[in-house]
């Protein structure tokens, strides 16, 4: 089975965000595999181990994403592809990323594509479904269970807390929701092996794309931090009185109940 994973390098969830020169300040920040993409990598490895085949991890970004791709290889993926757009693309959006990934994938034999349901930085959740649409294959988002029998797939999808059991067929794209699995940590032998696994670097040229073909359809004109919240009022006195005071405050001052 040919399994592809879409992976993004993101800020660590414990990082504070600061802005420098109108951009998010990346100096000194820790980067990780987008947590939802980590579920995708784990699921791909499990599907391969059960059904055979090969897991290829793809990322669109800069040279720096190589580290996260190596981590995925250390977890157990077989191959990695990095489409480096650093020199070619000035401003990208989800249209750009999806177009590049689809352009690469349209020439591959595909049974299954797994992506995270959303990246914790941009937070749009667009790239997975866009890629499926461009490849004209079905997709199911925010899945918590995947079961494959031959070319049939049974998927459980999280819908705002409810679960849908969905039947569909391969080739298929799914996006991972928390709860799908428990991603493994790379083992030491895994890390050693990962160094020798193939990591192909491509640029737009290699995919017969021009910058104009992937030009963003949207543009960010400003980035800012939310106003810092003032520390509020910690109530004091007898607990019963505190509770009464709180209810009064919420009712008359904050007017939220």
């Amino acid at each position, binding site marked *: 089975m040919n399994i592809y994973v879409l992976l993004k390098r993101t800020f660590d969830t414990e990082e504070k965000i600061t802005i420098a020169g109108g951009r998010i300040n990346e100096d000194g920040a820790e980067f990780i595999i987008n947590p939802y993409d980590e579920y995708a990598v784990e699921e791909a490895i499990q599907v391969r181990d059960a059904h055979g085949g090969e897991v290829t991890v793809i990322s669109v970004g800069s040279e720096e994403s190589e580290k996260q791709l190596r981590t995925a290889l250390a977890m157990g993926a077989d191959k990695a592809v990095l489409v480096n757009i650093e020199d070619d693309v000035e401003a990208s959006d989800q249209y750009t990323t999806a177009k590049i990934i689809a352009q690469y994938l349209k020439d591959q034999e595909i049974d299954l594509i797994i992506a995270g349901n959303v990246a914790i930085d941009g937070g749009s959740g667009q790239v997975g479904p866009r890629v499926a649409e461009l490849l004209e294959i079905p997709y199911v988002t925010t899945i918590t269970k995947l079961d494959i029998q031959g070319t049939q797939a049974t998927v459980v999808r999280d819908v*705002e807390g409810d679960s849908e059991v969905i039947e569909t067929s391969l080739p298929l794209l799914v996006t991972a929701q928390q709860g799908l699995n428990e991603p493994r940590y790379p083992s030491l032998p895994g890390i050693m092996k990962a160094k020798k696994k193939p990591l192909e670097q491509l640029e737009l040229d290699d995919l017969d794309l021009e910058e104009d073909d992937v030009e963003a*359809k949207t543009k960010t004109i400003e980035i800012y931090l939310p106003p810092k919240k003032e520390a509020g009022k910690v*109530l004091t006195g007898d*607990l019963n009185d*505190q509770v009464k005071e709180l209810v009064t405050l919420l009712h008359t001052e904050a007017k939220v109940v």
Partner: protein
Amino acid sequence: MARKVLVLGEVRDGALRNVSFEALSAGKAIAEGGEVVGVLVGKSVSALGQELIQYGASRVVVVEHAELTQYTSDGYSQALLAVIEEEKPEGLVFGHTALGKDLSPRIAGKLNSGLISDATAIEVAGGNVVFTRPIYSGKAFEKKIVTDGLIFATVRPNNIPPLPKDESLSGEVNSLTVNLKDLRTIIKEVVRKASEGVDLSEAKVVIAGGRGVKSEEGFEPLKELATVLGGAVGASRGACDADYCDYSLQIGQTGKVVTPDLYIACGISGAIQHLAGMSNSKVIVAINKDPEANIFKVADYGIVGDLFEVVPLLTEEFKKLKINA
């Protein structure tokens, strides 16, 4: 510049969701005086058309089909694309719900258009429609414009105020026939786990528990408080990782981002990853035994104390308030 804007009315359990009225309000802003057309998709949904008009649509297009009883991306995208083909809009707005998140990128992919997901505010400035949206789960915000083609956005529930309902308004509700084909995903079963309460991402009140709730049973007092306030129960990653509750309740940078009117954090320390998911709530109350807990730094009101003492007392007080009201 006046634009024609289509707004999808989302139906759940036979009624329109609030976020659809908010989407209509967003559609009005994008239209800049142009026509706002409501769209309804489902099995028998046309009766809801007038309500969309009372909230700001000038008319409504309905696509009804037995195969559209439940949402599937194949069915709904064919329905929507048929309406888009017929109406040729310059703007398109959905709610940023499970349905909107699943459907919008596909429509954008098909139309080769941009898409601004999860908008929390819309303004028209310097000839552009400018969208505000959270990034890094609300640790920062960005302002975005569409530079090419259709202005397509999804709007986060609870952020864009709906227009007041005007029951004197009425308008045309027309149906469009669509032949559905190639439905590649089939829903075999829906297991309703969230049915007991209000949907977390749309709730006006959220009562969230952290490691301090100590067990699955520890969530009971929180559920009672949520019931009294008509709210939903959420949780921190700590509580989910400890198996006190289902991951679908998780609020944070991984998990859901919520912006209710009132957020009551019970036994939650306030890790950065949790704060990202809730710090843009309008009013935050923290209940924690540890006076040094981070959560107090973002709380509007705090009570230092044991949640198992405080929460039941709060429930009683709110009950009294409701009776007197």
